[in-house]
């Protein structure tokens, strides 16, 4: 991880990292580890966003975190509304934002992606879930936090988003690859034609919401997907599981990744073509 030390301010010897409240100049990696987050919290150089349900946030959360339940964001999933949310949480243009959930990173990923989509360049996912954080004995608090509103600009990042017509055109183009993030049995049942399956369950490993970049890269290469391909991820309904895949692919060094945020639910409701597999009763193997 490279840590940029801009603005020439006095070096803080403690961690060799300079963060000041005024210049939010710490550029976050894709995944923020617990130590970095704790350091940033101590320096008051980060906005921590808790995307669990309001009640869960109210009970306890990571120090200084603000609450933005995913459902609230999805209620009005359009750039102007998301911009309002950002501003109300007191997030300015370059401020580091670290997002966490308690759902193996999928909800956090969807929120992070939305922030990036409207032009926030400095978001990261916390490497672990809230439960894991708590189980490690790391700091938590109950105080409800709010911060003064901040101005944020709006620069829509079209290159990371795909809609249904884009997906439909893409599936005919060889260098555009569709990845379905749902579990295997859902994928087998029906999926967008030509999609490849990387179930979200492949992405995490115990203790971390994402495996190492090397492992994820190997899964991709094993599937014969060129790393310079354009990859579009989708999942069952609102782009959470595929949001996590989006970040997994970024972590693995894939440059061009897009999220079909409305995913298979919209695809089906639009009556678009599907590939189905009805010749086996695979659901009956599940012990659930």
């Amino acid at each position, binding site marked *: 991880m490279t840590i940029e030390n801009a603005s020439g301010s006095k070096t803080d010897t403690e961690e060799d990292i300079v963060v000041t409240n005024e210049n939010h100049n710490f550029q976050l990696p894709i995944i923020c580890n617990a130590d970095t987050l704790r350091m940033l919290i101590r320096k008051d150089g980060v906005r921590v966003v808790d995307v669990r349900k309001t009640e869960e946030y109210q009970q306890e959360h990571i120090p200084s975190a603000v609450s933005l339940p995913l459902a609230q964001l999805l209620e009005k999933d359009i750039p102007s509304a998301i911009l309002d949310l950002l501003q109300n949480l007191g997030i300015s243009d370059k401020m580091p934002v670290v997002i966490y959930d308690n759902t193996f990173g999928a909800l956090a990923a969807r929120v992070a992606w939305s922030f990036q989509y409207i032009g926030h360049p400095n978001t990261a996912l916390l490497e672990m879930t809230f439960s894991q954080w708590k189980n490690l004995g790391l700091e938590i608090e109950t105080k409800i936090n709010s911060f003064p509103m901040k101005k944020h600009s709006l620069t829509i990042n079209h290159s990371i988003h795909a809609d249904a017509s884009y997906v439909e055109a893409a599936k005919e183009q060889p260098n555009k690859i569709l990845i379905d993030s749902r579990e295997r049995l859902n994928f087998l049942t029906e999926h967008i034609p030509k999609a490849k399956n990387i179930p979200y*369950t492949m992405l995490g490993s115990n203790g971390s919401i994402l495996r190492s970049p090397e492992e994820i890269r190997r899964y991709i290469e094993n599937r014969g997907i060129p790393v310079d391909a354009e990859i579009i991820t989708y999942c069952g309904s609102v782009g959470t599981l595929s949001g996590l895949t989006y970040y997994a692919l970024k972590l693995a060094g894939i440059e061009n990744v897009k999220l079909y945020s409305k995913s298979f639910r919209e695809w089906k409701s639009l009556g678009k073509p599907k590939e189905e597999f009805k010749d086996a009763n695979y659901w009956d193997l599940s012990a659930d």
Partner: protein
Amino acid sequence: MADYNVKTTGNTGPIQKGVSRPKPNPKWGREEESEMFAQNVKHFRQKKLSDDDFRRFRLQHGAYGSRLQMNYSMIRIKVPSGEVNPEQLEKIASLSEAFSIGSAHVSTRQNIQLHWVQLEDVSEVMTGLVEAGLTTREACGNTVRNVMCSHFAGVCPDEKFDATPYAKAIARFFIRNPMCQNLPRKFKINFACCDNHGLARIADIGLIPEIKDEKRGFKIYLGGGLGAASFIGHLLEDFTPENKLLSTCMATIRLFDRHGNRENMARNRMRYLVHEIGWDKFQKMVLKERSIVEMTTASYTSKLFDVRAEEETRPFPKAVNAKMVKLPMLNERVTLESPAYERWLHSNVVPQKQDGYFTAFITLAAGDITANQLRILAGAIREFSAEGTARNTPQQNLAIRYIQAVDLPDFYSRLGSIGLANPGALTIASAVGCSGTTSCNLAITNSHRLAKEVEYKFLELGLDTDDSLRDSTIKISGCPNSCGQHEIATIGFFGGASRIGPTMAPTYTMLFGGSAAEQSELGKAIMRVPAKRVIDTIRKIIEIYKQERSDSETLNQWINKIVRGEGTGSVRNIENMKASLTPVMQLLPVDQDPEVYSDYGSDARFSAKTAKGECAA
């Protein structure tokens, strides 16, 4: 892990709950085989490796193609002697979650299978398995398959000695051995614990521990096996001393390798060879070959067969108050109204030969278990089983052994917390079902789901509490190939398709009177039953039995009597039986009752779709 260490107090450790330190990693797997697999998948995709070569390689490494979808595999994890430790269960849990369907499957030959794994991920699964000491090597293909051993071995009150180390030593000797990498066909070796348990007579080589003149040895049966045509194995000699165990196995395999039929795929199991040559002649050939093996085998080779290295050396703690332990519910009658715990004790727990210790069975539905259940179970095994491992059973259940009586209530409630505390494991309710149309290319019917339906229904009806049904078994295969071992069931079924009126419908051929163990018998085909009438048919049979039985006769005994034509009531023989069952077989025309013409798990019109099987590849 940390939790575990607290309870372990060094080497000799009898500890609070009587848990031993874990066994060393058994190291069945090899890292380089996963890498090779990944390479070969790439070469296959790039067409540098032919379909046939790749298939042979894939099967040698334990991956079958999935039903009508060759891009997916069923991965068969070998569990030699059925012994699987908590770390391995946890590993299987996480691999099934990441790369399979979130459930694992216990097979009828003590393997554990992961279904619908993308071919590209098989090497990842293999790598994970190696870490936990497991392998898929030679779990399929024309090799020595998983070496089975009765799950009671070591705790069975009737056994002469524990066969487990012998089973593992044999497995270790033959795995990757050039002698058996390309046999005419698959080769199965089963160890029993005693005359009453195990599957010694339906294997190519079946072995039952025996003691003669205070020396250890085996009764060895050759040439048995189930399939489209099944045979019961022949006894080689009265007693085979321990020191001839390896040479006997080697001789048999060498003969099969040399003389086995490599042309006709359908008739190339060793049992056909034995049948064609005739047992007397084959027997002489084996004995002769054995003397050649004995004369020519280098001492280096014999050292590769190391029973002592597989022996249990950990001291198990003595059970507390062993002599005073009473578990009344084991022997008393229970009813549907009995407390759930008593019902479970009655049908899932048996005493061991070790005073004060018990073996508890986990009732699975057709062998399926979720990743989460596996994880919690792994913890429970560490906490409650003094040997700290599980064994999987050919009834597709799990046996957790060395549990003390005082711990049974806690163990039970732990199981209950994850939905694993169903009763019925050792009763007619625990039906066996092969994978059928859930994943098998050759399947005609959804035998897997049917086995689950039977189990749900029988538990709901409380048939597990009826001791007269206890020694009866239900086993179901989705085609004649017998992977569900239907021929050794009291009431067995194999799937087919029948025309009923103008419509095709899924049906099962029902067999009566099969049995396992040393007196193994093959079931006799009785009649065809529509898939959706199988449960009603079994219930009707039970009803007739209740009317007809004499005093204490069990269902199993009664059915055997009917098969022999020796019934004493109004149903005397198979013909009478068929007549009594015909009313159950009546179906309305398809437009009035379309549902009975479709199979379980699908609402679509039934059609028998199959693809080339890979069993012989």
